[in-house]
């Protein structure tokens, strides 16, 4: 029975690690300026964990195989691990301690770069509203200013998703509302995120970015996309029955294409 | 063989553990209170009804009356199978004062309602009711314990009543200490 256990555990450990190593299912290529830091952190952790995982499982399997009791072991006397518990305490504290320290130090810089560092002063600001079950993105328009928001004026039928008041608010008149997040490549973007109804989240795997929307708060999030293309934005905070279908697209365009898009939107 | 020392110690430990749990609950509510006060612009400041101070006095006196039973219980418990003479009456007085406290709280709530300060009027009133109602419910629990103690004192020798007395008294004094804390919180920060 011990041999069977050892075999099962060993096979599982090796096969599952191999699948990780071969990247059979893996992250999409990263298109963000800050993505490299995250990918690096992930690979470091994956390598350390992979080694520890395989070592632990194979040691467990080997010990179970080797130290089985039963008729063959009658004559054998029991013994304790050399050094008693001390090697375990030392290995765990030192090895894990060093890993923890290193990963925390490096990781904190990655985290700070994304969530603590202020946005680039020249960022393109885009206002984002999350609702059951869609995202809407708002651009300031030619006047460069965003109109005020009035929840009581929200009317989906007339596409007034944000609750703008163009009749009385001049800054709101030229605001551009889009259901896609269109940005120019290599330009720092600053999103200001708010939710209309319940909690949502903004997740773009390709950008290695994620942030919850909290009703009642306006949350800033910044990024810079490095590769043109169309990328999924998905909601990761359970928001109701349409949560699985709450999706938008990030379209990263060349500056020229972006300008053209913006002009065509403003014309509407 | 009756584990009399065991029962006494265990009931004390049980009440201390209960005190830890109840304290944690009110700590959570206090932090919710502080966070909520800072998070919205809709805090209606109001003064707690003056009746609350009278109720406080009643509760503090009741702790005193409960303590008056202590020497009577200990003396009798040291004397074999003796009943605790004259202890039950002080427990009954405490019980009555406890009920008086709860009635006083009910009157205070009605006073607020008459002023138009309801549970849903705003976060300050909501927390006032939550704190005082939850405390009053725990006091009612203490009153149930005092009832049990009263019965035990009347029908069993003092050495069997002593663990119950110790537990009930510890819990009852805690209700008073907790109330003093809540009163302070509500009068200062409401």
């Amino acid at each position, binding site marked *: *029975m*011990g041999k*069977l256990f050892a075999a099962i*555990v060993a096979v599982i450990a090796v096969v599952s690690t191999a699948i*990780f190593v071969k990247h059979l*299912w893996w992250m999409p290529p990263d298109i963000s300026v800050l993505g490299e830091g995250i990918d690096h*952190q992930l690979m470091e952790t*994956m390598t350390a*964990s992979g080694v520890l*995982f395989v070592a632990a499982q194979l040691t467990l399997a080997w010990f179970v195989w080797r*130290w089985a009791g039963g008729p063959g072991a009658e004559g054998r006397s029991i013994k*304790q691990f050399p050094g008693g518990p001390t090697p*375990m305490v030392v290995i765990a504290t030192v090895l*894990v301690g060093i890993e*923890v320290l290193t*990963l*925390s130090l490096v*990781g904190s810089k990655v*985290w700070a770069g*994304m969530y603590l560092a202020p946005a680039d002063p020249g960022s393109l600001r885009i206002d984002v509203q999350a609702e059951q079950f869609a995202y809407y993105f708002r651009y300031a328009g030619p006047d460069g200013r965003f109109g005020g928001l009035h*929840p009581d004026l929200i009317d989906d039928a007339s596409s007034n998703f944000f609750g703008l008041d163009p009749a009385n608010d001049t800054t709101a008149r030229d605001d551009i509302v889009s259901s896609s997040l269109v940005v120019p490549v290599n330009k720092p973007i600053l999103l200001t995120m708010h939710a209309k*109804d319940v909690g949502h*989240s903004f*997740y773009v*795997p390709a950008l290695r970015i*994620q942030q919850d*929307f909290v*009703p*009642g708060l306006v949350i800033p999030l910044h990024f810079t996309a490095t590769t043109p293309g169309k990328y999924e934005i998905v909601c*990761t905070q*359970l928001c*109701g*029955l*349409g*949560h*699985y279908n709450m999706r938008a697209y990030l379209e990263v365009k060349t500056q020229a294409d972006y300008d053209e898009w913006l002009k065509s939107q403003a014309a509407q | 063989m009756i584990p009399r020392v*065991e029962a006494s110690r*265990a009931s004390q*430990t*049980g009440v201390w*553990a209960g005190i830890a*749990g109840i304290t*944690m*609950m009110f700590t*959570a509510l206090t*932090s*919710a209170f502080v*966070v*909520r006060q800072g998070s*919205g612009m*809709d*805090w209606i400041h109001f003064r707690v009804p003056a009746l609350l101070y009278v109720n406080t006095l009643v509760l503090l006196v009741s702790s005193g009356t409960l303590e008056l039973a202590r020497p009577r219980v200990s003396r009798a418990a040291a004397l074999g*199978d003796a009943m605790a003479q004259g202890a039950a009456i002080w427990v009954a007085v405490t019980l009555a004062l406890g009920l008086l406290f709860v009635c006083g709280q009910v009157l205070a709530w009605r006073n607020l309602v008459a002023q138009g300060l309801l*549970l*849903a009027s705003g*976060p300050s009133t*909501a927390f006032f009711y939550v704190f005082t109602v*939850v405390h009053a419910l725990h006091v009612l629990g203490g009153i149930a314990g005092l009832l049990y103690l009263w019965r035990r004192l009347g*029908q069993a020798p003092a050495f*069997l009543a002593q663990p119950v007395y110790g537990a009930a008294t510890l819990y009852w004094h805690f209700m008073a200490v907790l109330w003093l804390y809540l009163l302070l919180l509500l009068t200062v920060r409401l």
Partner: protein
Amino acid sequence: MTTPQVRETKAKIAELKHEAPTSFWRKNVFSLDHKMIGKQYLGLALVAVTVGMILSWLMRLHLGFPKFAIPGLSAVYPNGAAGGVMTPELYLSLMTMHGTIMVFFVLTTAPFAGFGNYFLPIQVGAEDMAFPRFNMMSFWVTFVAFLVLVAAFFVPQGAPISGWTAYTPLSAVGKDAGPGQGLGQTLWGLSIAIFCIGQLLGSLNFIATTLDLRTKGMTLARMPYSTWAWFITSVIGLIAFAVLLPACLLLVLDRVAGTSFFIPAGLVISDRLQPHSGGSPLLWQHLFWFFGHPEVYIAILPGFGIISHILAAHIRKPLLGPRVLIGCMAAIGFLSYIVWGHHMFLSGMNPNSAMLFSVPTLIITIPATIATLLWIGSLYGAKLRFTAASLFCLGFISVFVSGGISGFFLAQPSIDIYLHGTYFVVGHFHFVMGVAAMFGIFAGTYFWFPKMFGRFMNETLGKWHFALTLIGVYGIFMPMHYLGLAGNVRRYAAFTDDYMQSAQPLHAFITIAALFTGAVQLLFFINLIYSRFRGPAAPENPWQATTLEWSTASPPPHNNFGDRHPVVYRGPDEYGVKGPEGDYLMQTDPTGA
């Protein structure tokens, strides 16, 4: 003394001496006996896990084979599954109830309230728990909580859809937020509040019994691992459940009384401007996770204690570093209180606090690693006995390693940015809770069944149960990590045609593994029921173990030890020494003491 006083005294003395009840109701239903209460908790957990497992099969069938019409489902859910295919709201309600039932009514009851109630008093040499009446109350309160929760399935609009975490405002605004968010969500809040009360009453008993009712010679240092684990868990529970209770109270008030603890102003839901203002959704998250993180340690620490206890008896030598192991359990319990924010890195809370929560989270890895290394290191030089119980202990080590390592990723905020909300998280917590904690429960069952019922469970069936389950659970939960790395989001009621189609074969594989593993559990159920009535008779100490439960009859008499109080002379680790019965010395053995 007058006659009523004599009667009362005799009754009180009888009560204190724990004389056996005679009526059917007192013996089997409203029992004050901790052994019956423990069995009642285990019975409740068995019912709950069956319900929870069926819910998970339905969920997996839907995700793995979305077009497959589940037979009979439309009969049970004419609105939610017309034609046998689940609507999103039905999926989410099954998912919410699955999580709630499993975390509360299986993982908090069976390993802790179930086995703990049965064995803690015996292992410390007491006749019963300190407060038998409160103990009985704690079970019935928990039972009522279960009924209230299950009632949510039957109300109009059905069970809630906000997940077991019930984030606000979705869970707080009422029925505007969607199906299930009416009465169903309120029942959820009430049920969990009631559950908290039951567990708080239970914790009082565990703490007082451990500290004050230990028999002569049973110092704290001589307590078995499982007793230590239950004691530490009860202290954690006392603090944690005391926070969840008021949180649920405030949630219910927001829902029914018009307060705004968790709901800010200006929300427009279902085209209606909600009449709330000023509340904080993050407040709910903080309160919930302040409970929620210690809760997962409440779920796993009894497992630590149980497998350590069982492993010692099966390696026939002392475990490596007994005091270190207990210290690790205590350290994990203590640290569990300062890490809750790691569930909230991306929640919108101040990003500066991320590292404050991440560092202690990573530090918990240290005692967890030490414990794991101590278990593995204990195998060195052992003479391992392979029983169903010990196999599940060894399996525990393997799956705990797997689950713990995936936690290592999530503990780092920079990596959590990518993995939060994906199947990576689902794989992680199922490994540690859904598998490791369950393996602890299985191990405890196979080990203690002979003591509780005086009969052995079938070992062959048990070993098949183990081997097939081990393969099955890896087949279910390891692939979830791959899904997560690919960015597959969790809590999705369906995968639309334009989402992650490359992952669909993996989902189908997981479903097949889940159904296979579910079917394998039949071996366990059959074994339980058959052995209960026809299992071969078990002696007092079938495993040649050292602790107090093995020094009394199988099952123990009403007051646990007959008319004598056991006296303890040594610790629980005396395996591999020459004793009167073999290679061990029981804790009650006075030789050379």
